[in-house]
């Protein structure tokens, strides 16, 4: 399993989770955990996903998310979970 964190932030709107989740499903990326909140009108979502089944590499996934970034006008960042595991788990 290769875990990554996907964070999505920006102005709240209808259908953000649906749009992102659909794209991830197309890429055969499994969502393991999800948390979402609205802070002062700002939508903030963090997803922990498994990218090992994706047909493309890390940069490829990032590229595939690009149209969603533009369409939703949201900040979407993806990074490997290893950095959080290294920092917070022994």
């Amino acid at each position: 399993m290769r875990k990554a964190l996907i964070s999505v932030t920006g102005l709240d709107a209808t259908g953000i989770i649906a749009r992102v989740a659909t794209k991830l499903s197309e890429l055969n990326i499994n969502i393991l955990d999800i948390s979402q909140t609205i802070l002062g009108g700002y939508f903030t979502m963090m997803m922990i996903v498994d990218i090992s089944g994706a047909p493309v590499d890390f940069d490829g996934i990032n590229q595939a998310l690009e149209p969603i970034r533009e369409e939703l006008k949201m900040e979407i960042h993806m990074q490997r979970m290893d950095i959080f595991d290294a920092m917070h788990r022994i």
Partner: protein
Amino acid sequence: MIETGEILQTLRMIQEEHFDVRTITLGINLLDCSDRDPQVCAERVYEKICLMAKDLVSTGEHIEREFGIPIVNKRISVTPVSLICQGDPLPIARALDRAAKEMGVNFLGGYSALMHKGATRADERLLASIPEALSTTERLCSSVNVASSRAGINMNAVREMGQVIRKTAELTADRDGLGCAKLVVFANAVEDNPFMAGAFCGVGEPECAINVGVSGPGVVKRALEEVKGEPFDIVAETIKRTAFKITRVGQLVAREASQRMGIPFGIVDLSLAPTPARGDSVAHILEEMGLESTGAPGTTAALALLNDAVKKGGVMASNHVGGLSGAFIPVSEDIGMIEAAGKGNLTLEKLEAMTCVCSVGLDMIAIPGDTSAETISGIIADEAAIGVVNHKTTAVRVIPAVGKKAGDRVEFGGLLGYAPVMPVNPCGNAAFIARGGRIPAPLHSLRN
């Protein structure tokens, strides 16, 4: 599963507190490039570096993207050039600079000589060539080891380095003496240091190795803000915990770079390296402990605590810790130091005391342009004595600001920053420096 709070803490460290991996430095052994003909040697050096380092920058950028952690510098360190040059070392200097540009690294270190006990002819040729080498290249860094706890202090080398620094400053006077920012004089130099300008690949090192330097003064400062007014036991514990987290990321990046490039992992250097950016200052950590300004009485104790706690926290987080490891106190590269020196709160003498307990030495200090070579040599000798007697690495990287006097300002740009010219004690020492010879190693060097 990692909790949301932990994820947010890591993201805040990176986005708001300037946490980064400061450098991935690839050490490359060049001993097999030596040749009687300097041009042939230079060509071999260029080819070997371009072969070994071809994936360095792209690998660093990949890791940066995937892990979401900035890797500020990708650099190269090589075998001290005096060990491979059998004639004129300048063609090698130019080849190294060319290779650094070709590989896309911002600095390449190793235009160096190890002469703590004495000089070979190659060492002498290299020393004489340093001013020209540094004034005619862009990315080359130079260092000279003039003392060690085992061998004592080579006072001939100390004398010569005073002159080399002056000459380098004069040849780069149009750039505020920038050449001297790329020149370090060491006592007890380490072989696996990834930080510039003093990085070189020592003779005990493997064919090549990945050495990683982490940083994060801003993260430590922020952590200390949470324990305002608490006793020092808690201050030390807080720094240790933070250093542990920072170093774990350094270890992760080092392991990843090593695997991807198929090059052995050397060490993680767990240093707090400041930059001139606000929120990235070692001086501000000291001030957070309760000092009005760095330089106030108590500064040395605060730095000693910081340096020690960083090591204690970091050492458990990596399987090989090395390099310089501790807290750097470069004046021009630290906004808090710049301000303290500018106000006159931080003097050269106080900095000297601080070097007894920091990880290196007098670093990035601009001194008046009329400072004599002998005075510079005296500063080097004092610093070397601190290193030799205390079994630690010390160094001098001073920049004589040609045409400027105390209170004026020099500007190097980028990570090298800017600095107020600091006053230097003008008392003469020419007869002391003229003696030459070697100051014997201290008694406690005989440990066997």
